[in-house]
């Protein structure tokens, strides 16, 4: 059991890293993109909107952290 926990902890730290909000934000934006695409909004403009979404989920937590510290 201890080895299993260590195995999952290793891969969590390897992929998610020390700020889980990056992975969560990326998955969230892409999930919204998947829903929009499924609903038929597969327009080129959607790509730029999603890009803006990725920038937001990356930059906002960094800026929020700096305000708190």
């Amino acid at each position, binding site marked *: 059991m201890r080895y299993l926990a260590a195995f999952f902890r290793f891969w969590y730290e390897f992929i998610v890293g020390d700020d889980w909000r990056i992975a969560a934000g990326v998955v969230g934006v892409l999930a919204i993109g998947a829903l929009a695409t499924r609903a038929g909004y597969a327009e080129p403009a959607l790509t730029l909107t999603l*890009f803006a979404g990725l920038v937001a989920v990356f930059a906002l937590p960094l800026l929020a952290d*700096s305000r708190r510290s």
Partner: protein
Amino acid sequence: MMPLGLSAAELALVGATFLASAVEIVEAYTIVLAMGLTRGWRSTAAGAVAALALLAVLTVVAGYTILRLIPPSLLQLVIGTLLLIFGLQWLRKAILRSAGRKALHDEDAIFVTEVEAAQAAPVRTLFGLDWFAFVVAFKGVLLEGLEVVVIVLTFGITADNIPLAAVGALLAIVPVTILVILVRGPLSRVPENSIKYVVGLLLTTFGTFWAIEGLGLFATGSESLEWPTGDLAIAIVLLGWIVVSRILISALRDRDSPLAEAEVAP
């Protein structure tokens, strides 16, 4: 005409894997040097070579399995997402270090810590090898190399050229080894943060492009989403991430921090 007859995309592929690999090799050498100089080179070299062999097998097996098991449309989305998360992690650390909010990766300090640990550990021989030196060198090379394997696989699979991506990563061994031989110590003066910043930008850019294109998997017909300017959008996305990162470095810069003299990204 591009050098060596490579296309621009292939040059970007080799460049990205070369730089990512160079940074990780510098970090791995710090551990290997500490073990080699303190506990002897035979066991240390055996550990490092065993890890390199395992990484090579992993690259071939994982590459082959992924290509066979995952349909191409899903591959683009999965790989793009992985690359994007990886790239943003690298970029975040490089931004925080450039802004003086996170300490630089100090190869000298890591070297001293490793040397102290190596001197304190008792000698235990197994299969004729100093087991401590073997295991530490093996783990050090394996952990640093694993990130390179992921980058080689993601870039290589998407560009449909894993061998070329692997060549880029392997080429980095030569200059770093020459530098280690010349310096005879940890490579503390290599501008690691600047290289990580550039690699972070490349991983994030290609990750953004491929992950969003891959969302076409959910559209009728499952065709990739089209960026407004086609492949030229890669340059626009890169420019976008450069601008965002520069704004963040400037906004986050902490002038009162003792890390204010930190190495600034190029």
